[in-house]
């Protein structure tokens, strides 16, 4: 059996494959969003919490960065039911991906917060902002500029990490390719199409990330560049 272009093109707009692409997209976005929330929370707990709170945050980060995401997914979906805790496939995937992502993002967000000039804390306190207001209005918006590049990198990784969810039978892109490959045993054609889709998704994200970075860089750009863009 040699390479077949007809199968290749047929798989390209195969309904099952396209459905997989769509699942990969929303699974990535939802998991990333929840993971970002968890990451901000964990970072703030670690930086500003009392020792007990800090311990919880550090334990969470240690645990989820220290074990493979594949084991985390399998434990959540197939292991926890043993204890009477049941999540369906979609819940398990989102939970596993978000918890894992949050642990990595916590450290990225922490370094972003630390990169903000100490004078900003003084200035925001001097105009009468309490801790919450300082964080949300002054510190985090400035940390975002430092956080966005590694955050984009993490989302790039997330798009591909979702493929691990195929192991617990989530019908995302990887699982779709598996299923298609089994129909006619056109394994190479099916997985090449899946690989191309991942490449396309990651490339589109790359373009979006560039625009987001430019947006947050705008206030910090060279004097000329900024004043030109305002005309």
């Amino acid at each position, binding site marked *: 059996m040699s390479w077949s272009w007809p199968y290749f093109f047929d798989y390209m707009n195969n309904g099952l494959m396209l459905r997989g692409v769509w699942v990969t997209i929303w699974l990535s976005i939802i998991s990333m969003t929840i993971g970002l929330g968890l990451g901000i929370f964990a970072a703030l707990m670690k930086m500003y919490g009392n020792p007990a709170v800090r311990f919880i945050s550090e334990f969470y980060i240690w645990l989820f960065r220290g074990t493979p995401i594949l084991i985390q997914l399998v434990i959540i979906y197939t292991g926890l039911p043993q204890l009477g805790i049941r999540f369906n496939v979609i819940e398990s995937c989102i939970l596993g991906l978000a918890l894992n992502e949050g642990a990595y993002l916590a450290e990225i967000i922490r370094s972003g917060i630390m990169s903000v000039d100490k004078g900003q804390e003084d*200035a925001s306190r*001097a*105009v*009468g*902002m309490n801790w919450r207001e300082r964080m949300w209005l002054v510190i985090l918006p400035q940390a975002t500029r430092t956080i966005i590049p590694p955050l984009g990198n993490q989302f790039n990784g997330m798009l591909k990490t979702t493929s691990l969810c195929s192991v617990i039978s989530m019908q995302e892109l990887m699982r779709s390719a598996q299923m298609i490959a089994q129909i006619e045993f056109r394994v190479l054609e099916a997985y090449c199409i899946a690989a191309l889709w991942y490449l396309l998704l990651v490339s589109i994200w790359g373009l979006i990330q560039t625009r987001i970075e430019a947006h947050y860089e705008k*206030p*910090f750009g060279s004097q000329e560049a900024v004043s030109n863009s305002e005309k």
Partner: protein
Amino acid sequence: MNDTNSVVSIKDVKKAFGKNVVLDGINLEVSRGQVVVICGRSGSGKSTLLRCIDQLESIDSGEIRAAGHLMGFKEFNTKLVPLKDAAIAKQQRDIGMVFQNFNLFPHVSVLENIMLAPMKILKRKKSEVENEALALLERVGLPDKKNAYPRQLSGGQQQRIAIARALAMKPKLMLFDEPTSALDPEMISEVLDVMIDLSKAGMTMIVVTHEMGFARAAADRVILMHDAKIVEDAAPRDFFEKPRSEHTRLFLSKILQH
């Protein structure tokens, strides 16, 4: 303290960073509308005193009353109980502070720098706050910079915006922590001019500075700090012409030499 005209009343304030004593029994009264200049060599405690008045640093003992608040504490059954962060933030709204390094918010425009606190902290109406912000920009002489970002401005312009940002909260007291020390010489006067206007408008001000020209022109009193203590507190003329403290004579001879 009972004097209703008193805006700042500091009683026996002490503070140390570890073994290093930076404020050693400071007493200071400032009445409404007064402009007090504090000078002294670096490390004498003058910046720390300002930061303690605005609660950017806490004190070890004594008490500070400023803009109608017992800063950092509340009285409870004749005892002083330390306030939490949010309550301190409310006290800080009544005191404006200007820093050596400006510390404008770099991620938002000049106009948003001025409007941020009144809008988000005091939850005031945008149109109202914007009109006041534009008036403040006019007052510091930078109406055409409202859409610029801080990075696009010179140091002198940034400091004038920082003054406008502080004034937007309608403070009862303004603190200036070496406002011109980070500026190129040709920009110093544009900032001092704004401060002199402010003093003429009746603002109560405490200014840590080495600009003796400003002290002569605008100050009601000049204070010299030396080794964590206030060693001279006099009207400008007396301060410069017949200082009582040996430290003041030494300080003046060094500053006026060149």
